[in-house]
């Protein structure tokens, strides 16, 4: 019992420290948000998406921009640990390394989902769709949970490579693609009036991803981080 409490305390402490750093700089979230907005605009322009098509696109653009923005957040979250070898400090601490994983993943989840929730009204406005619905927010949170836990795992892999600054997206995108597709499909379905129940297969897919990736973090984070 005290073991579980100590474990949760460790998760909480890792998470809390990330919040503290973010609060100190107040940079990560604005950067992510602006980046997401930028992608929405960039694509519209560069791909000259035709107006009639745009309704169906809202879901796709929401997730693509969120995925990119989230990658920035993931990168920052791990590069924070790299400077001054702060990660070694975490590794020295008498806490399970999987607790470090969950702490980092929790932080990433919070930042990305905050950005996602802020995106909803904005995308609603620009694409004449009402994305401000509860089931949609639920799908968003679930999708972000799956994406960021995978991302946290892979970011720990990527910083050990020589190209650490740029490797993460290359590792993350292809592996996250099923999750992203499922999330886009579920969102699109919700927008076209289907209920969550009708879209349950997509939702289960995302849920399975979230569980799997967190399990992978639990199992492999220790192995990934030893030198």
């Amino acid at each position: 019992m005290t073991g579980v409490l100590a474990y949760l305390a460790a998760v909480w402490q890792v998470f809390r420290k990330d919040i503290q750093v973010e609060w100190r700089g107040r940079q990560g979230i604005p950067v992510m948000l602006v980046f997401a907005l930028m992608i929405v605009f960039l694509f519209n322009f560069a791909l000259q998406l035709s107006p009639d098509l745009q309704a169906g696109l809202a879901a796709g653009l929401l997730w693509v921009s969120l995925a990119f923005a989230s990658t920035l957040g993931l990168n920052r979250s791990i590069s924070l640990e790299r400077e001054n070898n702060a990660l070694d400090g975490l590794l020295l601490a008498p806490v399970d390394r999987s607790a470090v994983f969950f702490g980092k993943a929790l932080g990433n989840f919070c930042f990305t989902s905050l950005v996602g929730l802020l995106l909803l009204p904005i995308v609603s406005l620009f694409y004449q769709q009402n994305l401000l619905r509860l089931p949609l927010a639920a799908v968003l949170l679930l999708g972000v949970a799956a994406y960021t836990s995978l991302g946290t795992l892979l970011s720990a892999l990527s910083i050990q490579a020589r190209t650490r600054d740029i490797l993460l997206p290359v590792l993350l995108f292809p592996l996250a693609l099923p999750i992203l597709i499922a999330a886009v499909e579920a969102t699109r379905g919700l927008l076209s009036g289907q209920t969550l129940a009708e879209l349950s297969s997509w939702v289960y897919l995302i849920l399975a991803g979230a569980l799997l990736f967190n399990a992978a973090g639990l199992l492999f984070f220790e192995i990934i981080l030893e030198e």
Partner: protein
Amino acid sequence: MAANPTPYAAHIDIGGLSKRFQHRPVLNGLSLTLNDGDLCILVGDNGAGKTTLLRILAGLVRPSQGEVSVCGSSPIGNPRIRRMIGYVGHQPMVYQDLTARENLVHYARLYGLAKGEEVVADAIAAFNMAGYQHQPVRTLSRGMQQRLSLARATLHNPAILLFDEPHTGLDQEAAAFFDQSLRRLNQPGRIILLAAHRPQRLLTVATHVAWLREGAISDHLPVTALGSAPLLNSYLQEVS
């Protein structure tokens, strides 16, 4: 930094330890035993493998071969053992954007220290960091960061202390204070292993000296017996 940090005796036992990077062996069948109460100075040329050895003992690097036991268990993947280790490396291992104090508080919490705030306040006072405790680490000078790193590593009063060139960047006053702390820290229930290039100042404090040469410990003897090892003695005295 109270007395006797662990209920049982501190102990380090290394047998046949090898570490290769790529194919190049850095440590090659190294054996070393440190007993409760030892304050052992680790000397050796640049690239001898001192940092590698300390990182293996801290559980940060997995050995290629051989046995490493810290207080009876391998330090790899063992939170209970990690709890007993304090390590000061070449890098301060702190967060640039947090202040000195916030970093210490973070570590205190991570180690689950009961009176975290108090311990941190003591450490800040001890290392004379009060003047800049609220500055982000990013803006601290090298010596200030080194003090922070020393404070961090000793915060949880560990039974095993691993110091990698701890005097780096410290000014006279801080270095003298650190030497005194060493004297205070060196008690039953604790082992201190300290890598240094100019250990002369420490010979009055230390109990042992170990010489890392060609991947193994070529000499390991009490400071009092230094006279009987002319080679090591001349290595230590080379320039003073």
